[in-house]
C-alpha cells in the first residue's frame, strides 16, 4: 500500500514522527500522563473484574451444592440470600414427587461482604458429595465453624483456633473451596445465635433424575406460589451484572469518574504542552499549517497517550489482581478481556475531550503573537 502511495505514507510518518518526538521531548510529563490514563483504565477493569469474579464465584459455589433446584422466599433479590421463610416449607418440598433430597440453609450476614451459612451437615454432604477437609473435621459443638481454604488464608486461621466475627467461633475444619459458602455453621446453632429460630433463607433441592427436574420445578411452582424457584443453571445464568441494577449503576459511576480523571489529566497535560509549544505552533502557522493540521497533531498526540495509557492500565490490572489476591483473597478478581477495548475507548474519549480545548486554543493562536513568544 505504501509502495503505491509513498507520499501519503511519508506524510503520515512525518507527522507521527513530530508527535512522537514531542512526546519524547517531555518524557516525565508523557509518562505521568500515560500512567494517569492507565490508572483510569485500571479502575474500570479492576471494578469489572471484581464484579464478574465475585459473581462467577457465587455461581461456581452454587453449582458446588450439587442441587438441581433452589427455592427462595417471595420478593428476594438475586444476590440477597438473607431473608427468611419458615423451615417447615422444606417438608412441603420434600413431599413433591421425584424430590430425592431437600435441605434448608440460613444465610447470616456478619458484616462487610462476609456471611455464615447454616447447614444441616449430613443433608448437605449427601447433596454435595461432602466436604474435602484440608484441616480438622466436621462440627463437634454449637460454636463450631467450618471455613473454606480461601477464608482461612485471608484470616490466617487454622483448625482448632478461635475467631471472633461478632461472636466467637471455633474453627472445626478447613475445607476446599467451591461449595455454597466460605463459612458454615450448624443451622440450629446459627438460628439460636441470631434469633432466627425455624427460619431459613434457601432450600436446595435434588431431583431423583435429571430428566425429572422440569417436573419437580413445575410441581414446586404450583405448590409454592410467589416463592422464587429456579433450576440452579437458571439461577447461575441470572447472576450477571446486567441483572444487578445497583452494580450496573456503581460501574456507571466509576466509568464516569474515570472519564473525568482522563479528561482532567489530558486537559492539563495538553494545556501545558500548548503553552510550552506556543512558538512552535506559530512556526507551523507561518508555514501555512491550517487550524485542522495543528489540531490533528495534538489529537494524534492524545490518541497515542491514550493507547499507551490503556496498555499501561491493562498491565496494572494484573498487578491489582495480584494485590487483591494477596490482601483480599475472598474477593475473586478476574481479568475480563472483553472489557479491554471498552476501557480503551472510554480512556480515548475522555482524553480526546480533554484535548479539545487546548487543541482549539492552539489552532486559533495568532501566529504573530505565537512567534514572538519566548
Amino acid at each position, binding site marked *: 500500500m505504501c509502495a503505491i502511495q*509513498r*507520499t501519503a505514507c*511519508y*506524510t503520515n510518518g*512525518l*507527522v507521527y*514522527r*513530530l508527535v512522537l*518526538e*514531542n512526546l*519524547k*521531548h517531555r518524557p516525565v510529563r508523557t509518562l505521568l500522563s500515560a500512567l494517569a490514563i492507565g490508572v483510569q483504565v485500571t479502575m474500570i477493569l479492576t471494578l469489572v473484574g471484581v464484579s464478574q469474579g465475585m459473581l462467577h464465584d457465587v455461581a461456581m459455589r452454587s453449582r458446588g451444592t450439587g442441587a438441581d433446584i433452589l427455592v427462595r422466599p417471595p420478593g428476594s433479590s438475586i444476590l440477597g440470600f438473607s431473608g427468611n421463610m419458615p423451615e417447615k416449607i422444606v417438608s412441603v418440598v420434600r413431599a413433591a414427587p421425584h424430590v430425592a433430597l431437600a435441605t434448608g440453609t440460613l444465610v447470616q450476614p456478619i458484616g462487610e461482604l462476609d456471611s455464615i451459612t447454616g447447614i444441616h451437615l449430613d443433608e448437605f454432604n449427601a447433596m454435595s458429595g461432602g466436604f474435602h477437609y484440608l484441616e480438622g473435621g466436621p462440627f463437634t459443638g454449637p460454636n463450631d465453624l467450618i471455613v473454606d481454604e480461601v477464608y482461612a488464608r485471608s484470616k490466617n486461621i487454622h483448625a482448632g483456633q478461635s475467631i471472633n466475627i461478632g461472636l466467637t467461633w471455633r474453627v472445626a475444619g478447613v475445607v476446599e473451596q467451591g461449595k455454597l459458602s466460605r463459612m458454615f455453621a450448624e443451622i440450629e446453632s446459627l438460628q439460636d445465635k441470631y434469633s432466627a429460630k425455624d427460619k431459613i433463607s434457601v432450600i436446595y433441592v435434588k431431583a431423583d433424575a435429571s430428566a425429572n427436574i422440569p417436573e419437580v420445578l413445575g410441581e414446586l411452582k404450583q405448590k409454592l406460589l410467589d416463592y422464587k424457584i429456579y433450576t440452579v443453571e437458571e439461577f447461575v445464568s441470572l447472576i450477571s451484572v446486567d441483572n444487578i441494577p445497583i452494580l450496573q449503576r456503581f460501574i456507571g459511576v466509576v466509568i464516569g469518574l474515570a472519564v473525568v480523571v482522563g479528561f482532567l489529566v489530558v486537559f492539563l497535560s495538553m494545556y501545558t504542552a500548548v503553552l510550552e509549544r506556543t*512558538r*512552535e505552533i*506559530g*512556526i*507551523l*502557522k*507561518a*508555514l*501555512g*499549517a*491550517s487550524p485542522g*493540521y495543528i489540531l490533528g497533531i495534538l489529537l494524534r498526540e492524545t490518541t497515542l497517550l491514550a493507547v499507551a495509557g490503556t496498555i499501561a492500565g491493562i498491565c496494572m490490572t494484573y498487578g491489582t489482581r495480584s494485590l487483591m489476591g494477596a490482601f483480599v483473597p475472598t474477593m475473586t478478581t478476574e481479568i475480563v478481556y472483553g472489557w479491554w477495548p471498552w476501557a480503551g475507548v472510554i480512556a480515548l474519549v475522555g482524553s480526546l475531550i480533554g484535548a479539545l480545548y487546548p487543541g482549539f486554543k492552539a489552532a486559533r493562536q*495568532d*501566529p*504573530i503573537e505565537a*512567534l514572538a513568544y519566548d
Partner: protein
Amino acid sequence: MIEIRDLTKVYHVGEVDVHALRGVDLSVTRGEFVAVIGPSGSGKSTLFHILGGLTPPTSGTIHIDGRDLLKMTDRERTELRKTAVGFVFQKYNLLPTLTAADNIAIARDIAGRNVESDPQFDEILNLLGIRTRLHHKPRALSGGEQQRVAIARAIVNHPAILLADEPTGNLDTENSNAVLRLLRDLNDRLGQTILMITHNPEAASYGHRIVKMRDGRIVE
C-alpha cells in the same frame, strides 16, 4: 509581482489605536532582491507580516502575483503562506524536536506536496551546503547552519517571495556574510524574489534596492 498602494495597518491595543503603517506604497518586480531598513517601530515587521499573510491590512491595496490580500479570508491567507510566501526569521524558528531534514519536509507536507523527491531542491541543498547536516536536530547545528536550514525550509515550496526578517541578526560576521551570499545566490541563480528586513547597512547592500521606512511610511 508585489503592488502595494496606500497600505495602512492599525492595531488596537486596549483603548489605544496604534498606527503601524500610515500609507505605504511599494512595487517589487519578479526576481528583485529588496532590502528594507529603518529604525525599530518604523513598520518594517508589520509590512512583512501583512505581505506574509500573518495579519490582514486595515486599508489600501496589496497584490502578490495578482492576488488581492485585502479581501483574503483567514483560510486564504493560510493558503498564501503555504504556497506563495517563505519566511526566514532572525531566531531561525526551527522545530526543535525534528531533524533538519524533517524541518524542511514538514513545510512541503503542510503545502500538500510530495516530500520525497525534488531534483531542483537537491540542487538547492548543495548550494546551501547543509546536505551532511540534514539528520541532525537544531540543537546540534551552529547558528549559521540553522539559518541555512531555515532558508531551505522557506524556499522548499518555491514561493513567489522570500521574506527574511533580520536573517543575520543572531549570527557572527562570518556566518552573516555566508547567509547573505546565499540569499544573493538564490536570487541570482533561481530568480527568487526576496524582501529582507535589516538594521545593518552592510547587509542591506546585498540587495538590488534599499527601501527606508520611518513612522509607518516609506521615506526613500
